[in-house]
Protein backbone atom coordinates (compact mmCIF):
# COMPACT_ATOMS: atom_id res chain seq x y z
CA UNK A 1 0.00 0.00 0.00
CA UNK A 2 1.41 3.40 -0.92
CA UNK A 3 2.23 5.85 1.83
CA UNK A 4 -0.35 8.26 0.45
CA UNK A 5 -3.01 5.56 0.83
CA UNK A 6 -1.84 4.75 4.35
CA UNK A 7 -2.01 8.43 5.31
CA UNK A 8 -5.46 8.74 3.76
CA UNK A 9 -6.75 5.63 5.52
CA UNK A 10 -5.38 6.74 8.89
CA UNK A 11 -6.97 10.19 8.61
CA UNK A 12 -10.32 8.86 7.39
CA UNK A 13 -10.49 6.47 10.33
CA UNK A 14 -9.43 9.04 12.90
CA UNK A 15 -11.38 12.11 11.78
CA UNK A 16 -14.12 11.12 9.30
CA UNK A 17 -13.26 14.23 7.27
CA UNK A 18 -15.74 15.89 4.92
CA UNK A 19 -12.86 16.89 2.65
CA UNK A 20 -9.52 15.15 2.35
CA UNK A 21 -6.75 15.56 -0.18
CA UNK A 22 -3.47 13.71 0.17
CA UNK A 23 -0.95 14.74 -2.43
CA UNK A 24 2.45 13.18 -2.99
CA UNK A 25 4.49 16.15 -4.10
CA UNK A 26 7.83 14.38 -3.81
CA UNK A 27 8.73 15.02 -7.43
CA UNK A 28 8.74 18.75 -6.77
CA UNK A 29 11.48 18.07 -4.23
CA UNK A 30 13.66 15.87 -6.44
CA UNK A 31 17.29 16.58 -5.64
CA UNK A 32 16.44 18.30 -2.37
CA UNK A 33 17.27 17.00 1.08
CA UNK A 34 15.07 14.08 2.05
CA UNK A 35 14.12 13.06 -1.48
CA UNK A 36 13.94 9.29 -1.76
CA UNK A 37 14.12 7.23 -4.94
CA UNK A 38 10.60 6.40 -5.99
CA UNK A 39 9.15 9.48 -4.33
CA UNK A 40 6.75 9.10 -1.40
CA UNK A 41 8.88 11.41 0.74
CA UNK A 42 7.02 14.74 0.65
CA UNK A 43 3.28 14.93 1.21
CA UNK A 44 0.67 17.66 1.40
CA UNK A 45 -2.61 17.12 3.20
CA UNK A 46 -5.68 19.32 3.07
CA UNK A 47 -8.37 18.19 5.45
CA UNK A 48 -11.66 19.61 6.65
CA UNK A 49 -13.13 17.73 9.59
CA UNK A 50 -15.50 18.57 12.40
CA UNK A 51 -12.93 17.13 14.82
CA UNK A 52 -10.68 20.10 14.04
CA UNK A 53 -13.17 22.64 15.42
CA UNK A 54 -12.21 24.61 18.49
CA UNK A 55 -8.61 23.40 18.52
CA UNK A 56 -5.44 25.45 18.29
CA UNK A 57 -3.28 25.08 15.21
CA UNK A 58 -0.70 23.15 17.20
CA UNK A 59 -3.37 20.81 18.59
CA UNK A 60 -4.69 20.12 15.08
CA UNK A 61 -1.26 19.26 13.78
CA UNK A 62 -0.51 17.09 16.81
CA UNK A 63 -3.77 15.17 16.34
CA UNK A 64 -2.87 14.46 12.72
CA UNK A 65 0.68 13.43 13.60
CA UNK A 66 -0.74 11.05 16.22
CA UNK A 67 -3.30 9.57 13.82
CA UNK A 68 -0.65 8.91 11.20
CA UNK A 69 1.54 7.35 13.86
CA UNK A 70 5.26 7.47 14.57
CA UNK A 71 6.19 4.67 12.17
CA UNK A 72 4.73 6.28 9.07
CA UNK A 73 5.76 9.77 10.25
CA UNK A 74 9.29 8.42 10.51
CA UNK A 75 9.23 7.08 6.97
CA UNK A 76 8.36 10.36 5.30
CA UNK A 77 10.48 13.47 5.11
CA UNK A 78 7.88 16.21 5.01
CA UNK A 79 4.18 16.61 5.69
CA UNK A 80 2.59 19.95 4.90
CA UNK A 81 -0.76 20.33 6.65
CA UNK A 82 -3.73 22.56 5.88
CA UNK A 83 -6.28 21.72 8.57
CA UNK A 84 -9.56 23.31 9.52
CA UNK A 85 -13.12 22.64 10.55
CA UNK A 86 -15.62 22.44 7.67
Amino acid at each position, binding site marked *: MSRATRIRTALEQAFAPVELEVEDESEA*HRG*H*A*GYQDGGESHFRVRMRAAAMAGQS*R*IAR*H*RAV*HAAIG*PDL*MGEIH*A*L*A*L*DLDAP
Partner: protein
Amino acid sequence: MTDAKSRIDETVKAHDVVLYMKGTKEMPQCGFSSRVAGVLNYMGVDYTDVNVLADDEIRQGIKDYSDWPTIPQLYVKGEFVGGCDIVTEMTLSGELDTMFDENGVAYDKDAADKIREANA
Protein backbone atom coordinates in the same frame (compact mmCIF):
# COMPACT_ATOMS: atom_id res chain seq x y z
CA MET B 1 16.03 16.79 32.20
CA THR B 2 18.51 15.45 29.67
CA ASP B 3 21.47 17.52 28.60
CA ALA B 4 19.90 18.32 25.23
CA LYS B 5 16.62 19.33 26.83
CA SER B 6 18.30 21.59 29.37
CA ARG B 7 20.37 23.21 26.62
CA ILE B 8 17.23 23.84 24.56
CA ASP B 9 15.37 25.10 27.60
CA GLU B 10 18.16 27.60 28.33
CA THR B 11 18.29 28.79 24.72
CA VAL B 12 14.56 29.36 24.24
CA LYS B 13 14.32 31.17 27.57
CA ALA B 14 17.43 33.29 27.04
CA HIS B 15 16.28 34.70 23.68
CA ASP B 16 12.93 36.23 22.77
CA VAL B 17 12.73 34.58 19.35
CA VAL B 18 14.52 31.34 18.47
CA LEU B 19 14.29 29.35 15.25
CA TYR B 20 15.51 25.75 15.22
CA MET B 21 16.23 25.11 11.58
CA LYS B 22 18.24 23.13 9.06
CA GLY B 23 21.10 25.40 8.10
CA THR B 24 21.47 29.00 9.19
CA LYS B 25 19.38 32.12 8.66
CA GLU B 26 21.94 33.23 6.08
CA MET B 27 22.12 29.83 4.39
CA PRO B 28 19.12 27.58 5.04
CA GLN B 29 19.56 23.94 3.99
CA CYS B 30 15.90 23.02 3.58
CA GLY B 31 12.96 24.67 1.86
CA PHE B 32 10.76 24.66 4.95
CA SER B 33 13.44 26.18 7.15
CA SER B 34 14.16 28.64 4.38
CA ARG B 35 10.56 29.80 4.26
CA VAL B 36 10.33 30.57 7.98
CA ALA B 37 13.77 32.18 8.15
CA GLY B 38 12.83 34.19 5.05
CA VAL B 39 9.71 35.57 6.74
CA LEU B 40 11.59 36.54 9.89
CA ASN B 41 14.46 38.05 7.90
CA TYR B 42 12.08 40.04 5.72
CA MET B 43 10.14 41.27 8.75
CA GLY B 44 13.41 42.37 10.31
CA VAL B 45 12.95 40.27 13.44
CA ASP B 46 15.99 39.94 15.69
CA TYR B 47 16.11 36.19 16.27
CA THR B 48 18.51 33.45 17.25
CA ASP B 49 18.97 30.63 14.77
CA VAL B 50 20.05 27.15 15.83
CA ASN B 51 21.30 24.85 13.10
CA VAL B 52 20.14 21.36 14.04
CA LEU B 53 22.29 19.83 11.30
CA ALA B 54 25.35 20.91 13.28
CA ASP B 55 24.29 19.03 16.42
CA ASP B 56 22.67 15.56 16.34
CA GLU B 57 21.74 15.75 19.99
CA ILE B 58 19.77 18.96 19.43
CA ARG B 59 18.31 17.65 16.17
CA GLN B 60 16.55 14.85 18.04
CA GLY B 61 16.26 16.75 21.32
CA ILE B 62 14.19 19.58 19.87
CA LYS B 63 11.60 17.07 18.62
CA ASP B 64 11.34 15.57 22.09
CA TYR B 65 11.30 18.98 23.76
CA SER B 66 8.22 20.18 21.90
CA ASP B 67 6.72 16.78 21.11
CA TRP B 68 6.77 17.90 17.49
CA PRO B 69 8.22 15.69 14.77
CA THR B 70 9.51 18.22 12.28
CA ILE B 71 11.92 21.10 11.80
CA PRO B 72 11.83 24.13 11.60
CA GLN B 73 10.40 25.06 14.99
CA LEU B 74 9.78 28.62 16.09
CA TYR B 75 9.83 29.70 19.75
CA VAL B 76 8.76 33.06 21.13
CA LYS B 77 9.48 33.86 24.79
CA GLY B 78 10.14 30.19 25.46
CA GLU B 79 6.83 29.04 23.96
CA PHE B 80 6.66 26.76 20.95
CA VAL B 81 4.73 28.54 18.18
CA GLY B 82 4.77 26.00 15.37
CA GLY B 83 6.49 24.80 12.24
CA CYS B 84 6.49 26.00 8.67
CA ASP B 85 2.76 25.61 7.94
CA ILE B 86 1.64 27.26 11.16
CA VAL B 87 4.08 30.16 10.89
CA THR B 88 3.01 30.71 7.28
CA GLU B 89 -0.68 30.69 8.20
CA MET B 90 -0.06 33.05 11.12
CA THR B 91 1.94 35.41 8.93
CA LEU B 92 -0.83 35.63 6.35
CA SER B 93 -3.61 35.98 8.94
CA GLY B 94 -1.77 38.64 10.94
CA GLU B 95 -1.67 36.44 14.05
CA LEU B 96 2.13 36.50 13.97
CA ASP B 97 2.08 40.32 14.17
CA THR B 98 -0.28 40.13 17.13
CA MET B 99 1.91 37.60 18.89
CA PHE B 100 5.00 39.76 18.35
CA ASP B 101 3.08 42.82 19.59
CA GLU B 102 1.94 41.02 22.72
CA ASN B 103 5.45 39.80 23.46
CA GLY B 104 7.25 43.06 22.76
CA VAL B 105 9.12 41.67 19.77
CA ALA B 106 10.12 44.37 17.30
CA TYR B 107 9.36 43.79 13.61
CA ASP B 108 8.66 45.75 10.44
CA LYS B 109 4.88 45.99 10.10
CA ASP B 110 5.12 47.32 6.53
CA ALA B 111 7.17 44.30 5.50
CA ALA B 112 4.58 41.99 7.06
CA ASP B 113 1.84 43.79 5.13
CA LYS B 114 3.85 43.40 1.92
CA ILE B 115 4.06 39.63 2.46
CA ARG B 116 0.27 39.55 2.86
CA GLU B 117 -0.31 41.72 -0.21
CA ALA B 118 1.96 39.48 -2.28
CA ASN B 119 0.00 36.41 -1.16
CA ALA B 120 -3.50 37.87 -1.27
